[in-house]
């Protein structure tokens, strides 16, 4: 009887295949990549369904419009064929076939062409505007992240001082006012009433006629035009970073490894960066990823107010012109851009925090 027990225990500890598969699945990087693809797939399907299945679907509207403009010379079938090429899907086929061909085209980056300037592909339209939004949002966000972390750290180190109160209350109040209202107020007070800033000269992403290239003048001009949107994106998130960093630093300061580091005579500078700073900033990296989606989403109104040719402005134009392939394209590509940013933040986080990077560890 005892030998049976011994044999059984051997088997249990032998290598069990599921465990190996289990390990790779749990690894944070694989999970982040899968999550990214899942998001993209959900968005594409969502927009696909939106365009087709909603009552008074834009596809039907387009077909009627085609028939009317051709005052009857086009039959329903012909109009449908044109519409289907515009939408990059074959309308006759049943829904699931349409969906499959839609996805197939998407994989070849062919997402139909614009209604208005038929012939110019949606991708080319988007690629001409998306970089400006990513540039302005990216700069504004990174600036607010870096400045916010600095101020948050400072406010925590000087807890309950005047500086702490001003920075935290001020930050949270600025970030609670909707950013488009701040934009309007900037135009009102700095432009119209006092002419401090000449808004008209800042319209558009860069001064027309400038020779695009990596010259200092051109880059300077880019920043000149994008300065207002960047300021707004900066103000939108700055309060959030200050408050999160302040509370993360306060809890890090109470940790035992900070007292232990002081007991070992480490310099304040070293403790502030490698011990308090690095641990406090960890949770903020994941929040950075989430805030990208929010800011990009809100860019549309900021770009409209400042007449800055980003993807948001182009989306609004497409909406008013009911140019559905462009709407569909913008929604998908912006989501992909945001998802890629999130993936980068997830990977950065698993590298920064070893407890997640190396699943398992020696102690078992």
């Amino acid at each position: 009887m005892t030998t049976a027990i011994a044999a059984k225990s051997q088997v249990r500890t032998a290598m069990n295949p599921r465990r190996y598969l289990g390990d790779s699945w749990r690894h944070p990087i694989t999970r982040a990549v899968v999550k990214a693809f899942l998001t993209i797939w959900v968005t594409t399907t969502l927009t696909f369904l939106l365009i087709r299945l909603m009552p008074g679907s834009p596809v039907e509207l387009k077909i009627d419009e085609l028939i009317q403009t051709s005052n009857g010379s086009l039959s329903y079938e012909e109009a449908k064929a044109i519409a289907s090429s515009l939408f990059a899907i074959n309308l006759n086929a049943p829904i699931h076939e349409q969906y499959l061909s839609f996805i197939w085209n998407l994989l070849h980056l062919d997402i139909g062409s614009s209604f208005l300037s038929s012939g110019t592909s949606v991708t080319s339209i988007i690629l001409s505007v998306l970089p400006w939004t990513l540039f302005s949002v990216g700069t504004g966000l990174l600036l607010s992240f870096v400045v916010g972390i600095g101020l948050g750290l400072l406010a925590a180190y000087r807890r309950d001082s005047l500086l702490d109160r001003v920075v935290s209350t001020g930050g949270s109040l600025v970030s609670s006012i909707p950013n488009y209202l701040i934009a309007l107020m900037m135009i009102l007070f700095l432009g119209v009433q006092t002419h401090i800033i000449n808004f008209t000269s800042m319209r558009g992403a860069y001064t027309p006629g400038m020779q695009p290239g990596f010259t200092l003048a051109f880059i300077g001009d880019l920043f000149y035009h994008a300065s207002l949107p960047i300021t707004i994106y900066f103000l939108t998130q700055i309060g959030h970073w200050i408050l999160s960093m302040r509370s993360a630093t306060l809890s890090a300061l109470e940790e035992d490894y900070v007292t232990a580091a002081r007991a070992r005579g480490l310099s304040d500078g070293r403790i502030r960066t490698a011990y308090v700073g690095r641990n406090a900033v960890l949770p903020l990296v994941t929040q950075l990823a989430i805030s990208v989606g929010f800011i990009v989403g809100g860019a549309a109104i900021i770009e409209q107010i400042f007449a800055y040719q980003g993807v948001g402005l182009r989306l609004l134009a497409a909406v008013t012109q009911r140019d559905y392939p462009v709407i569909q394209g913008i929604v998908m590509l912006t989501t992909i851009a945001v998802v890629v940013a999130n993936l980068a933040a997830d990977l950065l986080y698993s590298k920064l925090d070893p407890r997640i990077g190396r699943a398992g560890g020696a102690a078992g």
Partner: protein
Amino acid sequence: MTTAILARPTFGQRLLGMWLSAGGFLRLLSQRPVGLLGFIGIVFFLLLAFVAPLFVPFQNDPSLVDIYQTPSAAHPLGTDFQGKDVLNQIVFGGRDILTVAILAALVSTAIAITFGSIAAVVGGKVDSTILAITDVVLTLPKLILLIAVAAILRPTGFLFLAVLLGALQWSSLLRQIRSQVLSLKERDYVEAARSLDLGIVHIVFREILPTMRSYIAIHFIFAMTEAMYAQVFIVILGLVPVSGSNWGIMLYFAQGQGALYFRDSIWYILSPILAISLVQLSLVSFASALEDIFNPRLRGSA
């Protein structure tokens, strides 16, 4: 002290308990001036939006004679591009917006609480699916989706708009509620309640939820600010059919009619901006004061 003794206080005692704790709460709030200002701001705007319209006559007759008049005794905030009184529009402009904000916040908080607690309590497959969906929605650029959906569906009624906004906002709150319930579920006193066979109703409503009450209240207020932001966002962009008048629509017309660029039309565009900003400021400062009061770690030593 009395309610502390009674396990099942009658309605009267419960009211007494709330009154005593309300007094205590105000005392705690008064130690945080910014929070108190926020609380006063909220009460003021709720009265302005839901009570003032009962007393102030609604003026809707345009008179082209006095377009963009600067503030005067007759028109404390001047008039708009149709000569209508701006103050009157501000008084009547709050109700729609606040209703939609409250409804949207209710929708998103309700989704977050139900699915968050289900994911935490049930666990296993259900938990991982809910979590996967939440993670996906969390990273979506929601406002871009909102623009597309609003453009195509053309939401008109309050309820439809509120549900739409609510349906886009629940993801981060759901994750937080799930982790809260998960941590509370593991607590020793919940395990004791299970072994005393007190029943799931007692465990959820007497052991877990009471500790989360303040947490949910705070995040309900934050959800309102998000709903306000998104609602005014799509109204200004003109994506929602314009009906009636509210602060967002005032801004839409102000922008459309070039009020932004005339020197003396400043009051017409500034009034809704200030109204909306003050509501948001009050909500945020009050909510952060609540967070400070109910978060034991920040409250310092007893």
